């Protein structure tokens, strides 16, 4: 990432202020939380951003009188959670790897364009890398998490009626999940993962001992998604990711097109920033 001139920085500051004001105007908890069978109703399509971006939704796909279609980068920003002007990416918190494994993390990170099991592969990203569910369908006995990922559509069926983990299933990319309600928070316990995924980019590998706990709490039309990762084979302590705020959306998920990567043969170096 390269430097920015003063105009860019000033523009970034203005945009951050505008976005901040928008976020403040959308404080969660101002609308009542709908309930279903005694629990918060998590049904809906949820998007991973906090605060509406003012010019967005009303202009999406709008065709001007001259035939021009409004194509707003704001949508990209919404999906990618990027600031208006891209700033140098801050260093991410490193999971608490065992000291003897730090060299492996660095090596994988340095070779990420070839070593990453997700990018360029069309394979499932795994949990927690897949992020919060894009849609939740909540039933009496189970909850479905549905994902519209660039690598494909994925789903997880999560029993919430006390059924234990399925010990008969093979280890998998998205693991085996069971859920329970702890007050108004849905707590999902996930295990039985394969090791063909990373926790995130930058070489954050894990073992098949991975154990993930997700916590989903709805307040008004905002859903908070929190994740804690444990992996006693490679980590010295649980690793809690930064929580995410999701907003209820009226968009509809669609069937993913075929996934076929055409980029890998054209990479000229290992740069992944």
């Amino acid at each position, binding site marked *: 990432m390269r430097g920015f001139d003063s105009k860019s920085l000033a523009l970034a500051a203005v945009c951050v202020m*505008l976005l901040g004001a928008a976020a403040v105007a959308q404080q969660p908890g101002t609308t009542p939380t709908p309930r279903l069978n005694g629990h918060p109703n998590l049904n809906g399509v949820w998007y991973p951003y906090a605060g509406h971006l003012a010019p967005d939704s009303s202009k999406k796909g709008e065709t001007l009188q*001259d035939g021009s279609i409004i194509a*707003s*980068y*704001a949508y990209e920003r919404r999906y990618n959670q990027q600031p208006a002007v891209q700033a140098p990416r801050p260093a991410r918190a490193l999971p608490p790897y065992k000291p003897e494994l730090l060299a492996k993390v660095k090596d994988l990170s340095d070779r990420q364009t070839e070593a990453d099991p997700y990018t360029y592969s069309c394979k499932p990203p795994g949990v927690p890398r897949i992020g919060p569910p894009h849609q939740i369908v909540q039933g009496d006995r189970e909850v479905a998490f549905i994902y519209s990922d660039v690598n494909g559509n994925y789903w997880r069926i999560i029993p919430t009626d006390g059924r234990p983990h399925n010990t008969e299933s093979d280890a998998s990319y998205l693991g085996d999940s069971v859920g329970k309600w702890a007050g108004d928070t849905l707590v999902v316990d996930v295990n039985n993962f394969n090791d063909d995924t990373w926790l995130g980019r930058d070489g954050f590998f894990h073992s098949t001992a991975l154990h993930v706990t997700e916590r989903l709490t709805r307040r008004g039309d905002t859903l908070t998604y929190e994740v804690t990762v444990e992996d006693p084979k490679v980590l010295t302590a649980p690793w809690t990711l930064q929580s995410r705020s999701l907003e209820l959306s009226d968009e509809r998920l669609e069937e993913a097109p075929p996934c076929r990567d055409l980029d890998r043969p*054209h*990479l*000229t170096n290992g740069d992944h920033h």
Partner: protein
Amino acid sequence: MTKKLRQASMTIGALFVCAAPLVAHHSFAAEFDGYKPIELRGTMSKVEWINPHIHLFLDVKDAQGKVTTWEVEGGPTRHMRDAGVTKASVDATFGQNMQVWGYPARNGSPRVFLKTMFFPDGHYIAYSNQPTDNSGLGEIPRPAQRR
């Protein structure tokens, strides 16, 4: 048309004051030169409406009449739709002349990452604008840059 394009540029440009650069889900810098977009004019010959990125193919004829097929890489289908591009809208351009600005591949192959695309009917979409872009074109090449 020029007047219409100018109006459109002004309108959309205003919306883009706080525009963010698109970042592909993979490395951009390892694959494309984000400094100087190039212009392509050619005939749409193929559409690959796939994830994680769509790929459009333009048959571009040089001054000597030699035709080279250029690959134009866009984003995920969902992002493209939000940018005003559907599969139907690009399928409809098959065999028609398109103008594309894109960031060229670093390995010298005839490929670009989509910046802006002008459709045969004159409407256009702006898809990405790299923070490193020093071409002076801005978010959208102005009508004067259309020949």
